[in-house]
């Protein structure tokens, strides 16, 4: 920018014909004055820790993600949308009346742009009508919000799922389906599965829950066909998602006296974890 007035001034000194408009400065000025939206328009940002799990390094607009796993599925979903929410995207949670709001805030979700539609958890009118109306509600929410967290109320008709996927693609929104995968009839673009989880800090009669190590695997279609794995602190000791510095270091840092991490895939399924 600094060079533009100097060049113009020199031409005036020479007394030549009127100065040609400094066209080369226009893109600079436009770039400086334009809201920073275009660069990140295709993807929504995620936490740096989670970026290696996603093929595009962010949540691709118009895609459908499924978050699966016996434990920690809710935390993974919240951690995925936290960064986007802080950057100005609106996030809605549909059908999650038991969502821990404090946990959402700790995982980085900006509550100013976070909307809850409990769907049946409400007091008036939702119980009987909400269950059948959820596809309509989800479609209406996709009109406005950029990220929709969805916990399915039960079986989903293929036609509803198909319509929602099309709506998300059309609006450039991201649909995150939380919970059991088989209920979602459409193939999702990316499925994040929590393979194993272990809590830190709790002993037998002493301590308190401080942090959790999770192994997350991401498998999807097209560019994401090759599974990507990551070991994360989810949540870390401050409630946020954090990286395990390196595989070995993370394992070395484990304190003795707590349950060891099972081999991936051999984790016993806690069937009682419902939400």
């Amino acid at each position, binding site marked *: 920018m600094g060079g533009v007035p100097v060049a113009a001034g020199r031409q005036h000194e020479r007394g030549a014909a009127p100065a040609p408009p400094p066209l080369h400065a226009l893109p600079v000025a436009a770039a400086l004055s334009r809201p920073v939206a275009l660069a990140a328009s295709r993807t929504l940002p995620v936490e740096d820790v989670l970026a290696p799990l996603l093929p595009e390094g962010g949540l691709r607009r118009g895609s459908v993600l499924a978050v699966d796993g016996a434990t*920690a599925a809710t935390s993974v979903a919240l951690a995925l949308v936290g960064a986007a929410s802080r950057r100005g995207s609106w996030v809605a949670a549909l059908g999650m009346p038991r969502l821990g709001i404090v946990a959402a805030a*700790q995982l980085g979700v900006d509550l100013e742009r976070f909307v809850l539609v409990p769907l049946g958890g409400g007091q008036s009118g939702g119980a009987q009508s*909400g269950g059948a109306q959820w596809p309509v509600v989800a479609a209406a929410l996709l009109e*406005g919000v950029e990220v929709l967290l969805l916990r399915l109320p039960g079986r989903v008709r293929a036609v509803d799922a198909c319509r929602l996927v099309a709506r998300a693609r059309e609006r450039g929104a991201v649909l995150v389906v939380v919970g059991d995968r088989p209920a979602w009839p459409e193939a999702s673009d990316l499925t994040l599965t929590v393979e194993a989880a272990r809590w830190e800090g709790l002993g037998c009669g002493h301590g*308190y*829950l401080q942090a959790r190590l999770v192994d997350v695997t991401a498998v999807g279609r097209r560019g994401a066909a090759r599974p990507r794995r990551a070991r994360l602190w989810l949540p870390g000791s401050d409630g946020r998602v954090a990286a395990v510095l390196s595989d070995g270091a993370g394992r070395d840092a484990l304190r003795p006296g707590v349950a060891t991490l099972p081999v991936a895939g051999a984790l016993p399924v806690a*069937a009682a974890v419902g939400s």
Partner: protein
Amino acid sequence: MSGRTLVVWCPDWPATAAGFLVGVPAAVVAANRVVALTPAAREEGVVIGLRRREAQGRCPTLQVVAADPGRDARVFEPVVTAVEAFSPGVEISRPGLLGLATRGPSRYFGGDEELARQVAVAVDTVLGKLAAGAGGCRVGVADGRFAAGLAARVAGGGGPAGGGGPADEAGMPVSVRVVEPGESRTFLAPLPVTALPDPDLADLLVRLGLPCLGDLAALPAPAVLARFGTAGALAHRLASGLDPRPIAGRVPPPDLTVTAGFDPPADRVETAAFVARSLAAELHDRLGERGLSCTRVAVEAETEHGERLQRLWRHDGILTAAAIAERVRWQLDGWLAGGTTTAGLTFLRLIPDEVGPANGCQLGFWGGGAEDGGVARALARVQGLLGPEAVATARIGGGRNPGDMVHLVPWGDAPDDGDGKAGAGGVVGGVGPVGAAGVAGRPAAGSGGGATGSGGPWPGRLPGPAPAVVFIPPQPAAVRDADGAEPEVSGRGVLSSPPSAVKVGEGPWCPVEAWAGPWPVEERWWDGGRRQARLQVVAQGAAYLLARERGRWWVEAVYD
């Protein structure tokens, strides 16, 4: 012009109501101060506001009775009935003082004097029945209530033209003072400003050298308003013999409601929405004519079967005609398609609920707020489908348990202070895990990461990450120890045996891998509050927050 008003004043009413005769020194006492007294007591030197002991010191024969507003009102009832015989619409200021508009009755009874005399006789008869020798009432008639009240006060023997004039049939004098129409200002002029209802202002006026109401009325009204504000303007109006309220100042609020009927009843959304659109345009035009805008509109509909439906729609900015029409359409969609109604709509009405001046609405320079506008539209549509409470934003406030800390605010509602529910911070706190672990000097509260809610420290709040799934209300759980017995928590917060297996809801028993606690919480004990002891448990990789309350185990949250 103020309305002619008749005021009946029964002096020292609390003393009369207590049954004391005029000649008996007696006083009515509230909070140890004299609030009313008989003329005999006044002659002995007792004044209102005196302490009881001092009043008794000045007049040793003083009879003292406690004040009882209920008794005052009860005994006054026959007086009111007697005056109501002349005209309905009697307005009671307080027991002992009532007013009556004289326009109709005075023509019927033959003039203000005659009416006032008859009222005074009627009231005196009632009072005489009440207690022989009780003090009589005083009646004043003037333009406006304030002047009439003062006329009634002056009507007693001391007044310049009071007493002696009219008399009842038996020749007994009655205390009546009638100020001729238009003479109120002249009548008020010599009276002291202390008669004004605002003692502070009266005090100030006296010190400024305006001891009489006439002095105040002589000042120009704008100057009084500028110097003394609204209270001064009101006093000026009173002193000038006008009504306290300027009559011309009140304009009845315009009726902005728009209504449409359907014949035949509309059972399809499209039919109703078509009419709704023109209704919305009409409402918007009416608002626009008056330079108003609407931020909240009520949609009201009635069906053929007489069902009445109403819902409020709020908008942060200003509801335009299109926005109103859109919302009405969503609402009708929700009602007709959602099965709320059993018949077609016969009637639709739009009521602007919150109306303010149209100040315009400024959008952000770079189209700021446009995306938020889309969100607002989408959420409003969902509210139309499910009801206004179905869409909520969350706020984190104070509290000890994860469920207590969250306040859900319906979308579009003004957020509360966020600490309303748990505002009464516990005096008796709880013991957090850090405290239990014996780490000195580190507060148990506040280490919960970003969840630093309002309302100061919350001892007993669990540190560390918050649970991602919170059960409101808590779900039943079962816990057993190694022997199969249920562990209990004693009143001193001691666990009877370590848990070895836990069962959540209808699920299977899961062996406990790690646990800690119990951490007791005792809150709001003054208000039927809560006593519980919490336990963190890891069973088969899942972490739970369990609570022992009301003699059984509950699962409060899952660290999902």
